[in-house]
């Protein structure tokens, strides 16, 4: 058995705090983000979406990766439109297209040179789509356990449907992330604290009202995403994605199974020589939280390997 590493012990106690939140206006949307370090920029896009009451993602998802990677890179994690501390979409545009537009707008607003983009889960779809539409903004792409992007059947509704706890509660959020994970102990109080902070924001509750009570989730978001996904997969099969791409997959994810990672690799590898797949054992949906040290080393090397002066 491998010894429990320093970082894993840190993770058990919550890990390092996020750098202080900054704000930037992205096309009229007040956007919260965290930034640390110097060097080539790595930009993280987390998963989930607005208007969910069982759990809520935010930039804190990356707290085990920000500080270590900041030793070599300028690392940036922002809150997507409608999520975390960032404003809700303008004109009730609760769609993935709005998320993608906002992500591109954020990178432009910060005037970043081409970034190493890392997208997890639904953020993996946003990252890939943003790259397809804005290849000049991206130097390399890392996709992590993205059921939304993979050309296979996701099983989120099976694994995470009907939580046995009430929405907006710590217990419910904990249940969701524990079911996502291989090792339930990685779901720390600090992580749940961050989820509750988002769930308690009035503007976030407003997004839940729109998505759930007014039905935007089923009438707008889902059909829009289905259309977007069909087009995005077609673009990938056409070979439009022309950036070095590594796919990182937790082997034991029950929602986005590893077959999806292999299928995605095949689609991308057919057209882009610089494609890699990396599978991490004893990891569920969040390999960057279950094995932060090995994930960070992998990401650092990939970003350095395809740095401005690299291949």
């Amino acid at each position, binding site marked *: *058995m491998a010894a429990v*590493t320093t970082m894993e012990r840190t993770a058990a106690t919550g890990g390092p705090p996020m750098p202080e939140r900054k704000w930037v206006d992205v096309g009229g949307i007040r956007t919260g983000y965290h930034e640390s370090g110097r060097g080539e920029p790595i930009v993280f896009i987390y998963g989930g979406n607005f208007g969910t009451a069982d759990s809520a993602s935010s930039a804190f998802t990356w707290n085990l990766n920000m500080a270590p990677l900041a030793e070599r890179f300028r690392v940036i994690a922002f809150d997507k439109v409608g999520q975390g501390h960032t404003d809700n979409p303008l004109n009730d545009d609760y769609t993935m297209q709005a998320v993608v537009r906002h992500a591109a707008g954020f990178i432009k607003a910060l005037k970043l040179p081409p970034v190493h983009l890392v997208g997890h889960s639904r953020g993996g779809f946003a990252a890939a789509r943003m790259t397809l539409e804005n290849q000049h903004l991206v130097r390399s792409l890392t996709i992590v356990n993205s059921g939304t992007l993979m050309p296979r059947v996701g099983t989120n509704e099976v694994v995470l449907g009907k939580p046995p706890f009430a929405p907006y509660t710590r217990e419910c959020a904990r249940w969701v992330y524990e079911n996502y994970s291989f090792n339930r102990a990685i779901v720390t109080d600090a992580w749940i604290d961050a989820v509750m902070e988002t769930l308690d924001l009035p503007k976030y509750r407003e997004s839940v009202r729109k998505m759930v009570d007014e039905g935007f989730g089923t009438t707008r978001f889902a059909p829009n995403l289905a259309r977007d996904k069909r087009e995005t997969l077609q673009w990938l099969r056409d070979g439009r994605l022309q950036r070095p791409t590594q796919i990182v997959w937790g082997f034991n994810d029950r929602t986005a199974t590893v077959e999806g990672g292999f299928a995605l690799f095949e689609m991308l590898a057919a057209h882009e020589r*610089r494609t*890699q*797949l990396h*599978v*991490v*054992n004893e990891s569920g949906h969040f390999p960057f939280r279950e094995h932060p*040290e090995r994930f960070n080393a992998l990401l650092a090397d990939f970003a350095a390997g395809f740095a401005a002066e690299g291949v």
Partner: protein
Amino acid sequence: MSAITRTTIDLGGRRLSVLRGGQGAEPALLLHGGVPGVTPYCSGAHVWARYLPFAAAERHVVAPDLPGFGDSEGGDEPCRIDALARVALALIEALKLGPCHVVGHDQGGLVALSMALAAPASVRSISIVASPAAAPTGDSVENVTLANPPPAPWSRGAQAWTLERLSHDPTHIDSALLDRCAACAELPAHRQAVARAGETAKAFAASAAKAKGDFYTVCRDGAFPVPAQIVWGADDPMTTVEHGRVLFGIIAERQRATHFHLINRAGSFPFRETPAAFHLAVGAFHRGLAGAL
């Protein structure tokens, strides 16, 4: 960048030729593949030439000509996996490398597995690279990649043909590689190996079956004792991606730190065909285990 030098190590009377370079803690030991006198190219430490500079830039790295290959004589017995593992462990002892990261290509991957089982305290991690030798076969389909070689065996031309057939991208087959392969064919170790190729093929196959059996049993009934990474070329003429996945799954069952890394557009020699991508996988794995970037 650190220089790579060739030296001879005396292992209790047995002379082993090794390539060495770099410095630092947690060294890496690179074990080439092949069966002496049987595999139709002259394998040896030189196959690592395009990867050694990457490895040596961050740690002490040692790549031996295993007994029966290159400048290392084979001894009196035909080549066997368990004997190769003993020699490699003796080399770790002699050079005080342990615990070190062992990286093994094809048959070398099976040697690495055997070392980890025999002496886990000497092995920090293993990386098994493009290793049909270590993967389960089941009732396998015949692989005809090397079925019809041109004459003459172990000529420069015939070895070039073999290396090209094993590769996805043959541009790594440079004159440095072919010169060394052709030169190795003239060395005493190789001549001796060819003279007893039939005996070696039989003994080696039996030892490989035993080593695999021991490995599968430990993974099934216990747990593989050290962190492991499987590195596979997505376009390897000698094996399928599924073979690599199955090998990963066997170890992953009870070894927490297990990774699978698939490299696009690489055949049997990812460390030569795509050395930067190969280093990205192996270097990050080694540093990640130490919690270092």
